[in-house]
């Protein structure tokens, strides 16, 4: 049985850029503990001489020429999607 503390949940939330409410922290503590208990059963499998598989069709790096390609999308189209814009730019809160 895997246990996970509320501090662990808050740490994972910080790593994940999620600002959780206190209620969410409590609920996720239980859920994440149950999920981790389930996936921990994999530890019993002997994989000592096995290579990992990251890509199932055996492809490795696929290259293309580094050339500019025509796009149907304009700068204005993309800027229009931003929640806040100013001076032809995406506006964000002060960083420094």
């Amino acid at each position, binding site marked *: 049985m895997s246990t996970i503390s509320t501090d662990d949940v808050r740490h994972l939330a910080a790593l*994940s850029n999620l600002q959780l*409410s206190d209620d969410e922290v409590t609920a996720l503590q239980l859920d994440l503990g149950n999920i*981790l208990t*389930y*996936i921990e*059963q994999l530890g019993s499998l002997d994989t000592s001489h096995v*290579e990992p598989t990251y890509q199932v*069709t055996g492809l490795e790096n696929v290259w293309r020429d580094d050339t500019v390609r025509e796009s149907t999308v304009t700068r204005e189209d993309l800027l229009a999607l931003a929640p806040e814009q100013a001076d032809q730019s995406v506006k964000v*809160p002060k960083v420094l």
Partner: protein
Amino acid sequence: MSQTITDIIASIQAGQTSARAEVETALAKAREHESYHALLHLTEERALQRADEIDARLKAGEKVGELAGVPFVVKDNFLAFGAPTTAASKLLENFDAPVQATVVEKLEAAGAICIGKSNLDAFAHGGSTENSAYGVTHNAFDTTRVAGGSSGGSAVVTALDIVPFALGSDTGGSIRQPASFNGIFGYKPTYGMVSRYGVVAMASSTDCMGCFARTADDVARVMAIMAGQDDKDMTTLPNYFVPTAPSKINAKIGVIKETMGDGVDDDVRHATEQYIASLRAAGHTVDEVSMPTLPLALAMYYIIVPAEVSSNLARYDGIRYGRRASGVQTLAELYGRSRDEGFVTENKRRIMIGSYVLSSGFFDAYYQQAQKARTLLMGEFSGLFNEYDFLLSPTAPTVAFGIGENTSDPVKMYLSDVMTVPPSLAGLPAISVPAGENAAGLPIGVQLIGPMKSDAALIALSGSMEVHRG
């Protein structure tokens, strides 16, 4: 009466109906079945405009595409014009896609007409469509039960005969399981057969784009348009998909023993046994086979997929597009609050599990271990495919469960994917085939799995059984 793609094309070509009439009929049926909540948006204006263009070309005697005038629905995680692409999340509530998914472009080039966007578990995280931020979709056969998921809406619009086919994405069973719950065909191709470009990414190493239809022949017609290499998705393979008639009278099929034991409903086991009997009656050889690591596939999946989810969903930060929380002071607060408000609980669970298994100190024990276990699982599949043409299992361990029945226990919900996850991890093609129903009239599906690139033969086998069973 239920119309196939073949029927619709024949009627349009013969001048008995028009693209506009077909689109209007589909839109009317969608409105009539609104209470199922299978669709989030109709794309009426664009659909009618495209239908009129096709009708004008037909009238002028110009060449039209192979699917000219055939209406369809996209799962709302495919970027498509005509309505916002929400991924059933609040985060993308007002997101108007600047481009369309490659497969949507291909289907439009072939003359098919998208009439609406279907409901899903937000960001395709779930097995019931209950994780949608816009409300649950109801099963086509029993409205107190779930549609399955995550492509629940697309399954239901196909089962209700609103459209002859609908698109879905399948990362661990999101097409096959809802197909099984709604009594239709649901197809997941070989990894790399179909472009993923323009579909909201979930787990890039297993995401596959496929479709729902009411006949195997229609599945093949749609996949023939969708298949092929795309320079916008570097994992796509050169096109090899050519629909075929079933050529092998006597296929060798292995029933995976581990999928027929404990945890499988008697109704489902019985229907699967009946299907096996009809395969034998049709001249196929069916043996029981064993895959010892298969019971661990779900644990592998719920390590690998959350890891990829946490990475893929990092892009939703409230900066360039999507929901931005109001009244925030700092950038960190903007990220944290926008993501907390925009994601549903299941999204957060998966992102955080992903962050956990990828953390330093845990990486080897979880993520690396799961990727090694994946090698063993793939080895078992390829060993069996040396001897067998296809493998078989139930699609899901149960029929459609009740709405609300599994929502409080995420692990119980995950168990619904136990049969569909193994071929996903191995990149194999798989199809859920209607295989009767239980005493209450709820549909049951059987999953047929083929080796890499056996897609055409696999669909043909499922179609030959359809004919055999009448």
